[in-house]
């Protein structure tokens, strides 16, 4: 995965897309009944290293889930959640909340209602709130697990527009079951099948001239 790029992960259901990106910030350790092997490096540093704190990993590598998950608190407190963990001074929190909401393209819609409960927002707005919340702790990488799966086309459009803004500053990894979405937003695309990485390439090249016959079959819609 590269900085300032969007990497899409595609593949049929159950091929390990979600599990894969959950390994990237050690969220996978929250589930039980699995074995962890191998290695993931962030800027040459092994994140599964013995002396690495998973909490610190997740500060650098933020995550947005399939369904928007807002805390039962105000819009403001939702964005401030990560900052409160660091006991940031109030004026810093204020500034970071505004900045993150602006980056998540939500600021104009919520600027007057920051104290309202977050669950009053629409699904699409909630998902952008989750993105703002992830951005507020200033990560370098943003992992998105099918962020538009539960949104309507308009909400999806807004998130996709947002991805073009976000990749100016972050490395973005997006899991999607929607090949058109990968083709629209990603610079590079990885195809997973049966728990294995089959092929990763420039999005354009992967879709136009896949090297692996399995990839070709999948993107031409013969299975999955």
């Amino acid at each position, binding site marked *: 995965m590269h900085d300032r790029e969007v990497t899409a992960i595609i593949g049929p259901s159950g091929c390990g897309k979600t599990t894969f990106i959950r390994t990237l910030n050690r*969220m996978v350790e929250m589930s039980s009944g699995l074995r962890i092997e191998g290695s993931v490096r962030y800027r040459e540093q092994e994140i599964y290293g013995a002396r690495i704190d998973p909490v610190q990993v997740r500060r650098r590598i933020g995550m947005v889930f399939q369904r928007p*998950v807002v805390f039962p608190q105000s819009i403001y407190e939702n964005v401030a959640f990560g900052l409160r963990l660091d006991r940031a001074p109030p004026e810093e929190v204020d500034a970071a909340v505004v900045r993150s909401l602006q980056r998540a393209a939500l600021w104009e819609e919520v600027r007057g209602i920051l104290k309202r409960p977050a669950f009053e927002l629409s699904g699409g707005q909630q998902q952008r709130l989750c993105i703002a919340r992830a951005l507020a702790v200033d990560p370098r990488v943003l992992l998105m697990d099918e962020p538009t799966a539960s949104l309507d086309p308009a909400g999806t459009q807004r998130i996709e527009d947002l991805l073009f803004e976000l990749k100016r500053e972050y490395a973005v990894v997006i899991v999607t079951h929607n090949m058109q979405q990968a083709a629209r937003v990603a610079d590079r695309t990885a195809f997973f099948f049966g728990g294995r990485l089959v092929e990763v390439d420039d999005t354009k090249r992967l879709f136009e001239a896949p090297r692996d016959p399995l990839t070709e079959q999948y993107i031409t819609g013969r299975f999955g």
Partner: protein
Amino acid sequence: MDQPVLRGEGSVGAAGHADPVAAPTPASIAPARRTPWWAWALSPIALLPLIFIVLIALVLLFSGDLKLLFEPGFWSFNFYFNPLAPSQAVWAFPLYLVGTALTAGIALALATALSLALAISTTVYLPAWLGRSLGTLTNLLAGIPSVVYGIWGYVVLAPYFGLTLQPALRSYLGWIPFFGGPLSETASGTGVLLASLILTIMVVPLTTAIIRDSLVSVPHPLLEASFALGATRWETTRRVRLRVARSGVRGAVFLGFGRAIGESVAVAMVIGGQTQIPPSIYSGTSTVSAFLLYQQDSAFIYPALLHALVEFAVVLLLITLVFNYLAQRASGERGAVGPTSAAGI
């Protein structure tokens, strides 16, 4: 097919479940079934518990002397009852209320802290199998009859309290106002401290079970979202789990208080029974429910005493009802449920 499968027509909100037009073709959706007659016939039975509560309150109110509640003697702080002149009795209800509030209050403060610690450690920190077995163990404590707690407190704990623990507490912690004050002259060990501790042990299983349930039912995605933001286990517990489970914790506290106020047998056995505002936590006093238990043997000899007991019971009933109602309201609050259901969880 020319005929649309689904067509909208008519107005929304019209009465009647069955649509007469939809009846003819066999492929049509069946009309709503009627509620069976016996469901109507049986529903008053479901109301019986409620009717019973009202009946108990009414019978108690009018079998005693209702006027007593409005007499200054009932509300004075000096207890006076001379069997030779029962008409001059003064009942000092507030005195017993102080004893009840004090023991139940201390017990609840301790029980809340203990149950929170127990519930958090068994649901969040300990491995699942250990947490579950500890949970079962706490639930078992709830099944022990209160008289067993009472006799254990009186026979085993009281001598130790009177001779060792209370003098030690007073000499080491006496500088804190709460632990200061005079020791009991007889060193019997019975009194506010022992009664509060016994009550704590009796309330803990109840409050722990409710708090555990509410902690466990916090939706997993909320916890994951918190972890993904780089929160530690404790931060997630404090900022997400406890916040979402807040109404359950509040319900547990009110229910526990109701239980502590009403408990009579165990308390009566270890409270001492003195009719006084306790000068310290080491002294004996009495509670409303303990008084009922102490005096019932002579109740039918002195009509004045009987009336007083009945009015005590009425007020106790009302107080416990209020706290149980508060518990219901606290845990039935939609506040914590709304946002998560809105998130589609």
